[in-house]
Structure formats: C-alpha cells, structure tokens
C-alpha cells in the first residue's frame, strides 16, 4: 500500500513535473507517529492532525506502527514525509535524519525517564529491583529502554541478567499499566507521559510510584530525512510545527498534549542520549 503510494508519487511526480504544485496540493502529507506517545487517545491524535492540516493547508495522513523500528523504517524508506520519533532512533540515524522541531514541555525541550514500581513496592533505587520482572516500552526508546539499560551497563549489568524477566509493551502507557496491574514489578517509562497520565488517568498512576528519575534529556523530536529538508512540503510542515502555538486549533491541540509549543532546538540537547548510547555500546 505504502509502497504503491510511494511509487505513485515518484512516477506521478516524474510525469507531471510541469505542475508540481497541483500534485503537492492533492497528495496528503504523511506523518509517522511512534506508539510511544499517547497513541491510545484518538481524540488527541485527531486534534493534532487537524491543527497541522489547518496550518499546512492540506490533508495529513497519520501513520502509526507498533514499534519505533517500524516507524523509523517508514521514515528512512520515505513512506512517510516526517515522523515524531524519539531522540534515540534520531541519534541512531543521525547521518540520515534531521530535526524539524522539538516539543517544549514545561518551558524547555527536555524530559526525563522514570523508573517506576507499584506503590507498595519498597524499592528505592534501581539496584533494589534486581531479580524482579521489568517492563520496557520499546528497545528503541530512550526513556523506555536506553536510560535503564545504560544505567545497568555502567554498573556492568545487562537487563536480561539483572532482571528476572523483561518484557516490551510497545507503549509508555502500557508500561504504567503493566506495573500498576502487577504484571511486572517495575518499568522504565517516559516521564512526560507519566506526568500527563497523572492528570488524565490518576487512578492508573496512583498505583505506581516513581523510584528514580534520569537527567533531563532532549524531548522526542519531529524528524525528516535530511535529503528531504529542502522540500517545500517538509519546510511547510516545519513551519506549521514551530507555529503551532500561534493558532487557536494549534493551541487547543498543544493544550491536550500539555505542551507549550515547538522549538528548533539544537541537536546538542540529545548529547545525554549519545553518551548513554556510547556506554551501552561499550558493554557490547
């Protein structure tokens, strides 16, 4: 399907080179979304699409996949024009990808990774969780995997050895659910998601407790392939993202996401992730 569509764009674009504007106006902008975000809330996603479509002046097609890897793959192969990724896959493909915009949360384009356990668990640090079951979000998630894995690597441990059992839930909310329901003892979760959930589903987060928080790290960014950064539609999308907080619909969408807006932050905000990637790689 996507392959077909891509072929259509390529062949159609070659055939109708004389009227690129018309084609661009007719083709929807394809935006990939990682499941790490609040992908369970169709209302939030719909509102974001509406706001971006309004700013872009055209329709937007949202592409969601189960794993980060799949969404990143879609972006790399060009099946989507841009994607809301995580800092970790962004850095993994730093040579190919460029930043479009970074969301601003609580005044800065940063967030933390939380290590959580159930409320009645007595663990106070990562080491106390040894031998227990642990839920990661996604093997390509910074907050939902890399932070804890690299913390363990720095202590000379591997997650699969340190924990009695690790599972991947492919969703930050799922990590919170797995811990809250007692399916696993602890979990690695996006701090932003956990905080938003405390206001949206307090009965869920109330059953969990934050054991430790990571350092402040670059917020999951919107990315596009570097070789497409010059495309008009990609530039329009970047502008739409950066100006999201200037329209009513954009503000409404941001309010639902509990974000302040978007910024064109410097890639250096992801240095912490790069450091962790290096430590993890060193172990391997």
């Amino acid at each position, binding site marked *: 399907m996507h392959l077909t569509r891509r072929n259509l764009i390529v062949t159609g674009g070659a055939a109708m080179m004389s009227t690129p504007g018309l084609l661009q106006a007719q083709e929807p902008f394809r935006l990939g979304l990682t499941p790490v975000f609040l992908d369970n809330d169709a209302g939030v996603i719909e509102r974001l699409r509406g706001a971006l479509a309004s700013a872009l002046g055209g329709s937007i097609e949202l592409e969601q996949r189960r794993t980060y890897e799949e969404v990143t793959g879609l972006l790399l192969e060009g099946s989507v024009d841009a994607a809301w990724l995580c800092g970790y896959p962004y850095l993994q493909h730093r040579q190919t990808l460029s930043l479009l915009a970074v969301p601003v949360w609580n005044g800065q384009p940063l967030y933390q990774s939380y290590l959580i356990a159930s409320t009645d668990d007595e663990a106070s640090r990562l080491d106390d969780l040894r031998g227990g079951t642990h839920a990661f979000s996604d093997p390509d998630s910074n907050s939902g995997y890399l932070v804890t894995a690299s913390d363990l690597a720095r202590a000379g441990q591997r997650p699969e050895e340190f924990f009695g059992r690790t599972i991947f839930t492919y969703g930050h909310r*799922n990590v919170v659910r797995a811990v809250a329901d007692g*399916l696993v003892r602890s979990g690695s979760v996006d701090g932003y998601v956990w905080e938003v959930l405390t206001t949206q589903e307090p009965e869920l987060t109330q059953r969990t407790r934050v054991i430790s928080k990571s350092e402040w790290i670059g917020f999951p960014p919107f990315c596009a392939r570097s070789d497409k950064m010059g495309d008009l539609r990609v530039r329009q999308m970047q502008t739409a993202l950066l100006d999201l907080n200037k329209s009513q619909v954009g503000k409404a969408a941001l309010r639902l996401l509990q974000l302040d807006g978007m910024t064109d932050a410097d890639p250096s905000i992801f240095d912490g992730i790069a450091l962790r990637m290096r430590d993890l790689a060193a172990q391997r």
Partner: protein
Amino acid sequence: MVLVGVIASQQVLATLGRVQDARIRELAQLHVQALSVALGPHVLRDDIWEVYDTLVRSAGGADVGRTVFTAVTNENGRVLAATDPDRAPLDSQIGDQVVGAQSPEKLTITGDVVQILLLAPLVYQGREVGQIFTELDVSDLVFERTRAAMLLLLGNAVATGVLALIGYLAMRRMLSPITRLARRMQETAQAPEPIPESELPRGDTEMTRLVRTYNAMVSAIEEKSETEHRLAERERFVSLGRLSSSLAHEINNPLGGLLNATDTIREYADRPDVVRQSSDLLKRGLEHLRDVARATLDHNRLDRSSVPLSLDDLDDLQLLIGPEIKRQQQQLTWQVAAGLTDLSRFASAPVRQVALNLLLNASAAAGQGGQITFGVSQTPNELRMVFGDNGPGLTNEASNRLLSSGPVAPGGGVGLRLVRDLVAELDGHIGVERDDGTTEIAVRLPLPQTGKAGAC
C-alpha cells in the same frame, strides 16, 4: 401426591441442570476458541504484554462478570499472563491452581459451587502452544437453579396444601354422617336412641345403610334391655316360686292342727281349760301363719327401697328358707355374728334378695340331707355374708352367671345373675371357693356412707 410433586420437581431441576451445563459448555468453548485465536500468535512469540492486554480486554468484553479470572501458560505450564497477576505471577507455574479444573466439553455445574474452573489447551495453527485456565462465575446459574428449586418447592407446598385442604373438606363432608353418628352415640351412651328418618343421609349410600344398621342395633339393644328387665323381674319371683310349695305346706300343715283346735273348742266349749289350751294353740298357729304371710309379703312388697335392713330381715330369711330345709331334711347352720350395728345402712330388699337366692341355691346344691351354712359378720368397712353347702359345686354355667356379666343362656340356677347384678349395684364383691367338698360363696358389701340408704 407429594411424591409425584417431588419426582416432577427433580425432573425439572435435572433438565434445568442439563440446559445450564450445555449453556456453560458452549460459553466455555466459545471463550476458549476466541482466546485461542486472539492469543495464539502472542503466545507463540512469548509476547507477554500482548497476551496480558488481550486477556484484560477480553475480560471486559461480552463475558464480563462471567469470567472471574483467566491465566494463560505456555506448553510447560509456566504463566505468561493472567488477568490477576497477583494470583498467577508472570513465569510462575500454574501447578496446584488448576486442580479440579474441568475441560470445556465436560464442564458441569455441581451443587451450590458458584465458581468453576476450566482448563483447555490453547491450540494455534493446529498445534498446542499453551493452556488457558479460567475461573467462571456461575453464581447466576446457581441462583437460577436455587430459585427454580425454591419456586418448585413453594409451588408443591401450595399445591399440596390446597389439595390437602380440599381433601380434608371432602373427607369431612363425607364423614359428617359418621361424625354425627359418633356424637349421637356418645351423647346417648347410657340409653342409645335411634337417629330419626329426617336425619338420615340422602340416597341409598353406605352411610344410609350404616345409620339404618345403627338404628336396628339400638332397637335390638332396647329389646334386649327390656327382656333383661323382664327376666330380672321374673328372677326375683323365681325364688318365691321355688318357695311356694314349701310355703303352702308351711301354711297347710298347721291348718289341720288349727282346724282340730277349733273343733276341740267347739266340742269342749264348757271346759274352759281345754278352750284356753286350744285357743293358745290356735293363736300360736295363726301367729306362725301371720309371720309366714308377712315375710312373704315383705319380700314382694313393691315399695321396699327405703326400708333399712335389720336383724328382723335375717329372721325372715330363716323363716322363708326353713320349710325348704325341712322338706329336704337338711341341716342348716345359722351364724349371725354379734355387733351388726350398721345393718341399717343397707336397704333391706337387695340384701334379702341376694341372701335368699344364694340360700336357695345352696339348698338345691346340697340336695337331700345335705348341710348348709349361713354366716353374716361385719368389719369396719363391709358386711360379709358366707353361704356354704356340701353339694357338688358350681357348674361352669352357674359360675358364669354369678361371676361375670357375659351373655347367659336362659334358665339354670336360681337368680344367680340377679345376685350378681344386685351385688354389682352395691359395689360389692362375690368370691367362690371350693374346699374339702364344701362350696363357699362369700359376698362382701362395702358399708354405704352414713345417712345414705341403699342404692336400690
């Protein structure tokens, strides 16, 4: 009726149980099939989260409330996920939890167990990749069954009660003639009365026949009573009848002497000594005749009940029995004890009748030249009369007449049944002893309370 109700109820409950079992089996099989389809790939890939998420989502589906708990294991019985992770933690062995679990095909609800365990293989692409263990809540079905049982019980109880009431009323209606009959019999126990024709049950029913039979019995009793009464009257005269010939002799014998005396007086009217002697003789003879006549009259006087017993009555008895004794040339020993102070508490008639009848019997039993004894004595509580003879003893029939109230053949004995009835009326007791060729009949009469005359 109750048994039929119980059996019918059992059948209904058994059918309900089968229907419920079929329903829960179908539900369990659907549950297992749906979960197998949904979970198969995840179990195959050991995708814990998806297994868990699918379980949780299915638990909130159409079967909500029915499935209490579900756990999925791999083929080795190791828990992959459960709707309640605390109960079946990840990677634990399901082990003992599945003890007593049933397969979907054989699932059955037993007793009042509200939760049943189900264990089924998780088959995916024709291969068993794990197991599904589910606890089903069947409380609604058990409640339904209990309610059905209660309703049946209640229905049966009401039906039985209504039928019993109808039966009672019908029986009561049917038995009302018998009830009336029984009441009438009770009310008229002393003197049974026939039921009037107007009160007879209508139609020629068993009841009518019963009442007619009762009326016939009442008539028979009346006739019998009348007969007995006549017999008793007659028996009373029997003793006198027996005495009449000897009494006639008693009167006749002196008559010759008396007539001779009158002739002598007439012939020797001028000889005062002869006249005086003859008139003395005449006076003594007439006095004897007077005594005999008086004793006889006393014995048959109609209004005797109020006359108290006295020693004169005993003398009368001796006078009355005397001619018979003499005729049979018998020896009579007459023993009247001193201190018979309370004789007057008895009425004379019954006591005289008893004594005379028993004396006549003794005389008849002793035979020609026999020996007869009569003794009367008194204790603080009773009057005791003993009649002895050296006859052959009482026959069975005579004994029966004297000692029991059973039916007797007519004739035989001299008023023995009358003796028995009179003694019974006086609350007395009759004893018979046979010893060394002598028969002794002892009559004990309790002394009546002072101031009260005899009951007769």
